[in-house]
């Protein structure tokens, strides 16, 4: 498309597109098209002026070429734009704000006093009615105070003050609604992540199929840890389904043949076949929005406290007003007290701070499901890591296969891959990848997969019972044994690797050595976490003790627990909480889910299993452990800001009241100062908490 360059700096370009009107969706198309261009860091498209600002760190020529090659029709076909963007929402509220401000300006500048007064009276009806309604419900809430302030001003004939009070209240309402809706929308689009592939059941076999090609009536198989991608009903099997993403209820629900299941819920345990009723895109996003709005997750306790305090302060303010009048017999002084209802400042500024922190964290690819969890992260003194996939890379590899009992190495890998294919864990992925790499095809020749979460898998292959899993599961639970005369070989298996044991009919057939390298930044990140105030950094793993301890030493954690079961992880967290600690759990797999929900804040690394993402309170989409440090700094900065706002609002407004009663400030001035300070602190609370260039250093 033809464009003109308006402003040109190294690494930044502002261009004007020579097209007719630009619609909101076209602006989105352009924005996501430019974002997909190599080297482009950020894009901002202004549809009103048809301008686009591109920040890039690659070659300028590439960006210019991409702009020249752009056309709306072509770019639209690429389907780069996500299902929901917040452009329309932002536009709606920007307009609302602008209209409110403009109306105020116009009416103050041009309209004659009688008309503005009449308008003020008209608009005051709403506030007075709300105040009366609150009184009717026997609640002394902020609405009562607002109503009284407006009513008294109107009754005194002071339409100007009434007008500015109502103007400020209206601005506050719009800002609050905007931030609220925006953060809900952001959260929902982060949460309505889709699973792309499902197991489609066709005449006795299962085929991995793209979710978009599923039609109503198809039967899909869901196993432990899998997300149910579509609405439907169970036709076979039984599963415990976690529906917390819809209902907020954390206890899983048993689903039997005939029970309905909903898209976005997760099978915690068991296996079932689902007959699909509705296909992709049928309102999952809207349901997530509804869920967030209904659940109390959005509110942090600090936010709650602010709201409660705001309402609690109302009687005092009213009492103070009455007392002032009784003592001074001066309506002006009485009004000075009434005009300064700091409750609304608290109600506005603190939620805005929380929502803005959630928005900021989204910028670091961290999605937080509620302000409460940021508070927990700020307060926590204990952080528990599940080793695999968090402290180590999420992509372990098979380093060696040691066959036993005369078995073939390749054959054992094929068998292992066949079992592990269904299990959503990074170690399992390693096995499947290795088989793929060696060109071993593993047709689904086992008949029945049974799941034992976290320990391993058991299955029937050609009438033989095959199990694969940890030492604990294979040797203690299932009573497998090492073939006679091979104990020495078994002992000589290197301890530096994690091990998977494969047994056929109760006899060890092979040991798969999994190399699970530590993340490069793990040591530094753990140190940074210590510095940021964690007194207890704990590592937990199902691996053998020797491997775990060597890793623990390398990383520098305070405590290590090896060979643990998922229940143990959860139990440990419960015990720590009972001791009065605030605990964060970081995990990525199915086996972490009990611990994730037990912790004060469960953090999932999003490369992991769907269930971990669903259950976790916070999801980190990045592969860098320093994101945790950023999250910590952000939460601490947020708590600092909340407390600061609190002190400022109460202190500032108390002095306004004192000055008002002393007769130094007239009511209009104190109302102006009060509302101005409220707006000011709200605007300040919308700014970023962390230094953009160096987020982990603030």
């Amino acid at each position, binding site marked *: 498309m033809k464009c003109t360059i*308006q*402003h040109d*700096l*190294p690494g*930044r370009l*502002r261009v004007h597109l020579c097209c007719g009107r630009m619609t909101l969706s076209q602006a989105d198309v352009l924005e996501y098209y430019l974002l997909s261009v190599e080297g482009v860091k950020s894009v901002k498209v*202004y549809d*009103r*002026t048809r*301008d686009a*600002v591109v920040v890039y760190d690659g070659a300028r020529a590439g960006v210019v070429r991409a702009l020249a090659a752009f056309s709306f029709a072509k770019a639209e076909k690429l389907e780069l734009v996500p299902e929901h963007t917040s452009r329309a929402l932002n536009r709606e509220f*920007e*307009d609302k704000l*602008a*209209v409110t401000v*403009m109306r105020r300006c116009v009416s103050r500048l041009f309209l004659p006093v009688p008309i503005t007064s009449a308008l003020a009276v008209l608009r005051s009806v709403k506030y007075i009615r709300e105040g009366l309604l609150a009184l009717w419900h026997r609640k002394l809430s902020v609405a009562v105070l607002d109503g009284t302030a407006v009513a008294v001003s109107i009754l005194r004939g002071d339409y100007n003050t009434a007008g500015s009070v109502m103007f400020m209240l209206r601005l506050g309402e719009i800002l609050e609604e905007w931030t609220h809706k925006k953060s809900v929308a952001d959260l929902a689009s982060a949460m309505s992540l889709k699973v792309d592939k499902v197991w489609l059941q066709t005449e006795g076999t299962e085929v991995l199929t793209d979710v978009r090609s599923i039609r109503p009536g198809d039967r899909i198989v869901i196993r432990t840890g899998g997300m149910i991608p579509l609405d439907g009903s169970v036709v076979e099997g039984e599963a415990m389904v976690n529906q917390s993403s819809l209902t907020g209820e954390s206890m899983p629900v048993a689903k039997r043949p005939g029970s309905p299941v909903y898209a976005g819920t997760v099978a915690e345990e068991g296996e079932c076949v689902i007959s699909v009723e509705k296909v992709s895109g049928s309102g999952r996003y809207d349901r997530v929005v509804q869920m967030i709005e209904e659940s109390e997750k959005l509110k942090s306790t600090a936010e709650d406290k602010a709201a409660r305090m705001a309402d609690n302060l109302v009687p005092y303010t009213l009492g103070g007003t009455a007392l002032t009048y009784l003592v001074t017999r001066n309506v002006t002084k009485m009004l000075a007290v009434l005009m300064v209802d700091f409750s609304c400042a608290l109600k506005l500024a603190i939620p805005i701070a929380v929502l803005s922190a959630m928005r900021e964290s989204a910028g670091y690819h961290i999605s937080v499901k509620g302000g409460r969890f940021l508070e927990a992260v700020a307060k926590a003194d204990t952080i528990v890591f599940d080793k695999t996939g968090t402290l180590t890379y999420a992509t372990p590899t098979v380093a060696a296969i040691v066959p036993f009992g005369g078995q073939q190495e390749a054959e054992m890998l094929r068998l292992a891959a066949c079992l592990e294919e269904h299990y959503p864990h990074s170690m399992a992925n390693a096995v499947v990848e290795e088989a793929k790499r060696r060109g071993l095809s593993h047709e689904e020749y086992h008949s029945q997969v049974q799941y034992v979460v976290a320990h391993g898998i058991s299955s029937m292959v050609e009438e033989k019972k095959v199990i694969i899993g940890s030492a604990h599961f294979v040797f203690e639970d299932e009573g497998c044994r090492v073939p006679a005369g091979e104990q020495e070989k078994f002992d000589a298996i290197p301890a530096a690797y994690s091990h998977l044991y494969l047994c056929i009919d109760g006899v060890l057939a092979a040991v798969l050595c999994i190399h699970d390298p530590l993340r490069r930044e793990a040591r530094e990140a753990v140190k940074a976490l210590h510095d940021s105030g964690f007194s207890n950094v704990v590592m937990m793993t199902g691996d053998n003790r020797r491997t775990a301890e060597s890793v623990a030493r390398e990383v520098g954690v305070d405590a290590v627990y090896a060979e643990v079961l998922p229940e143990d992880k959860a139990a440990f967290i419960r015990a720590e909480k009972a001791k009065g600690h605030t605990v964060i759990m970081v995990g990525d797999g199915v086996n972490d889910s009990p611990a994730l929900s037990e912790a004060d804040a469960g953090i999932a690394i999003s490369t992991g299993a769907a269930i971990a993402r669903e259950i976790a309170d916070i999801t980190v989409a990045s592969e860098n452990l320093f994101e945790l440090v950023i999250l910590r700094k952000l939460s601490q900065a947020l708590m600092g800001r909340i407390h600061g706002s609190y002190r400022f609002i109460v202190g500032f407004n108390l002095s306004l009241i004192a000055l008002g009663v002393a007769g130094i400030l007239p009511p209009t001035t104190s109302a102006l100062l009060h509302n101005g300070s409220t707006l000011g602190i709200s605007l300040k609370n919308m700014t970023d908490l962390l230094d953009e260039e160096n987020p982990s250093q603030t």
Partner: protein
Amino acid sequence: MDMKKIGLFAAGVLFGTAGLKVLTSKDAKKAYAQTTAAALRAKDSVMTTVTAVREGADDIYAEAQAINDRRTQAEAEAVVEDTSEETEESQAE
């Protein structure tokens, strides 16, 4: 009954019938629509101006940052690094 009251009454009747008719007539509605459209256009043009001003401000900010970057770079280049130890070593070799 004085004439003023009768006059007011008559005016009221007149307004209640003919006046309302005029205010709710098709032509009046057209005029309202035109006025509203003008107001909306005014709002849009204000918003466009605001956007343009914002873009300009962003440009200025970005340029200012670039200037400062260049300055710090120039300052860094103006410093001669202390390589006394390295030169001694190389001389000793």
